[in-house]
């Protein structure tokens, strides 16, 4: 039994961990850890009785525990040619491994990369940047806060435009039923600029559970282009929370691609708590076989003249299930908000299921908002057109699906070709209603 199902084991593990952290972390954060532990013990993992979780079956997770990696295992860096010229920070089983970094020396000197526990010890100001309450997935945030090990702190100083992209390369090598808890805090100073990639993948076939928390704080007029790629192995589970706080005139552009994990749920929560903020979220997910993929997006427009857009595209095949839940809340003071939200989905198999739910709650006057969702299938006329030119049915379906997916673009030009190859490769794994082989 793992810490998620055994109370005794959970308490013992927590005490043990805390005693190790007492010398390292400030008391205010230890207090937050204790509090999070208490809260998690009270609620446990979400169940299908929770409205926001009703589509996901989490019962297979009860065995999850902290595992041991095979220390002999070689960790490989990404083989994407476009990443050769980036700065790579490798996070193995939730812990930053400084030895496996790449190009770190090319960062401007003022940029801080450190262990989050250490950073909190010396910077009381981080208190306001960490552990933001989030909608709908607090229990996972509690679990991460109580138990994460070290964590990562990345801070870009004022007026610094980081030329090379920073890649957080998250890999898992642990064995069966391991619980992996990556934690990152990323802050951008005034008028700074960063291209950030978070890449999640398993380098094991084991069924582990990743529960990631990334908190992002954007200073005035800063700009973050953020790409997330979730390509975990097909036996694993992936939960992730991204929390973004925006300051005046800051711009957050995010693209999220997922095709991995057996069960996954990714939540992005953006607080536009300043005037003239801009936020553009896009997503593409490909779920096949028996995958369950849930994307939750929540945007709070709290101040005037904010602009937000959300476009999520879902491709669902086999007996897979896709969920998109988007909520845009325009609070009473957020006049002149401009917000739109779209969820477009492609169903490739009669057994596949998609539940798109875009929601808009408006409490302010003089705003421009829209939302919508579509679910469709491949166009038979277009399929015939391609077939009549000699292109096989499988290839024709891949091409049309690619055409559907194409609207999703990574937020960096230098990665476009590389991502297109990656996407094309992912589409060749689809069966278009045909049977998947058991793995």
């Amino acid at each position, binding site marked *: 039994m793992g810490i998620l199902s055994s109370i005794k084991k959970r308490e013992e593990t927590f005490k043990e961990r805390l005693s190790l952290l007492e010398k390292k972390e400030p008391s205010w954060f230890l207090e937050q850890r204790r509090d999070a532990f208490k809260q998690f013990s009270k609620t446990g993992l979400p169940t299908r009785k929770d409205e926001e979780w009703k589509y996901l079956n989490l019962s297979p997770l009860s065995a999850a525990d902290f595992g041991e990696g095979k220390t002999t295992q070689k960790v490989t860096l990404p083989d994407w040619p476009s990443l050769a010229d980036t700065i790579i920070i490798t996070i193995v089983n939730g812990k930053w491994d400084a030895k496996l970094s790449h190009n770190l020396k090319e960062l401007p000197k003022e940029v801080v990369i450190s262990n989050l526990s250490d950073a909190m010890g010396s910077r009381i100001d981080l208190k306001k940047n960490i552990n933001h309450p989030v909608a709908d997935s607090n229990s996972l945030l509690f679990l991460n806060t109580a138990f994460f090990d070290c964590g990562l702190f990345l801070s870009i100083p004022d007026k610094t435009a980081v030329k090379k992209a920073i890649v957080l390369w998250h890999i898992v090598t642990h064995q069966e039923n391991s619980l992996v808890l990556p934690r990152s805090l990323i802050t951008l100073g005034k008028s700074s600029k960063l291209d950030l990639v978070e890449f999640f993948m398993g380098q094991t076939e084991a069924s582990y559970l990743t529960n990631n928390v990334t908190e992002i704080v954007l200073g005035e007029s800063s700009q973050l282009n953020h790409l997330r790629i979730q390509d975990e192995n097909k036996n694993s589970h992936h939960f992730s929370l991204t929390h973004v706080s925006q300051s005046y005139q800051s711009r957050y552009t995010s693209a999220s691609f997922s095709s991995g994990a057996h069960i996954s749920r990714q939540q992005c929560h953006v607080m536009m708590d300043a005037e003239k903020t801009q936020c553009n979220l896009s997503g593409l997910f490909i779920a096949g076989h028996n995958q369950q993929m849930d994307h939750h997006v929540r945007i709070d427009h709290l101040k005037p003249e904010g602009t937000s857009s959300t476009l999520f595209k879902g491709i669902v095949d086999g007996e897979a299930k896709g969920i998109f839940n988007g909520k845009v809340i325009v609070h009473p003071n957020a006049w002149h908000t401009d917000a739109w939200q779209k969820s477009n989905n492609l169903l490739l198999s009669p057994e596949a299921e998609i539940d798109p739910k875009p929601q808009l709650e408006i409490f302010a006057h003089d705003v421009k908002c829209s939302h919508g969702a579509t679910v469709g299938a491949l166009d038979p006329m277009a399929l*015939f*057109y391609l077939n009549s*030119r000699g292109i096989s049915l499988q290839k024709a379906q891949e*091409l049309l699906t690619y*055409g*559907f997916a194409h609207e999703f673009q990574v937020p960096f030009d230098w990665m476009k070709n590389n991502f297109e190859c990656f996407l094309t490769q992912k589409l060749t794994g689809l069966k278009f209603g045909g049977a998947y082989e058991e793995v």
Partner: protein
Amino acid sequence: MLEIKNLSVSVDNKQILNGLNLSVKAGEVHAIMGPNGSGKSTLAHILAGKPGYEIIGGEIIYQGKNLLAMEPELRACEGIFLAFQYPVEISGVNNLYFLKEAYNAIRRHRAEKALDAMDFLKLAKEKMKLVELNESFFNRNVNEGFSGGEKKRNEIFQMAILDPTLAILDETDSGLDIDALKTVASGVNHLRNEKKAIILVTHYQRLLDYIKPDFVHVLAQGKIIKSGDATLALRLEEEGYSWALEKENARA
């Protein structure tokens, strides 16, 4: 090359073709004319293998093989090409990439080596001159936002690249101005040789001034009711289809 025997076809329980016969030999150009809704596109689609039709009788033999048993992509690999009356717009799919995939699929079927992007581009540039489309069409999505005439030129461009043995052109001339019509005709005449055959579905005699057919057929009431040489098209232009229909009905 192509032998259609007694073909009867229905869609949604509505019979459209009713005992159609047609024989096409290598080197020949056949024009099929007929009133709106007489089943010309249906025939063209069936030759290319579009699903959704019920074959209630007859057979089609193409180069000695049972055509109706072949998947559409196999037919294309074996040399059949349909220029669509209404070419389909495909968003997000690059025109040149699509055509390279098609070209290489057919090459692989013939156990020939696939062309890489560079060599294919060279071929495409050469064939493009034939249809007077400029290279900006390479990188647009397949037919998306093309004008009617551009779509038709794109069909002929595809035909020029894929170099079919049996080309079926379904009203490729409709809606074209005279210059576009000449371009389309020259594309077709370029393909023409003693090893290939062409079926032109058309409403107008006009196209036949530029592509001289060996045979002209009138399709009406689900079958070929009249066949003749190029002069039949001129006669139809003068007298209308009702003339051919009356003669057929008087005979029946």
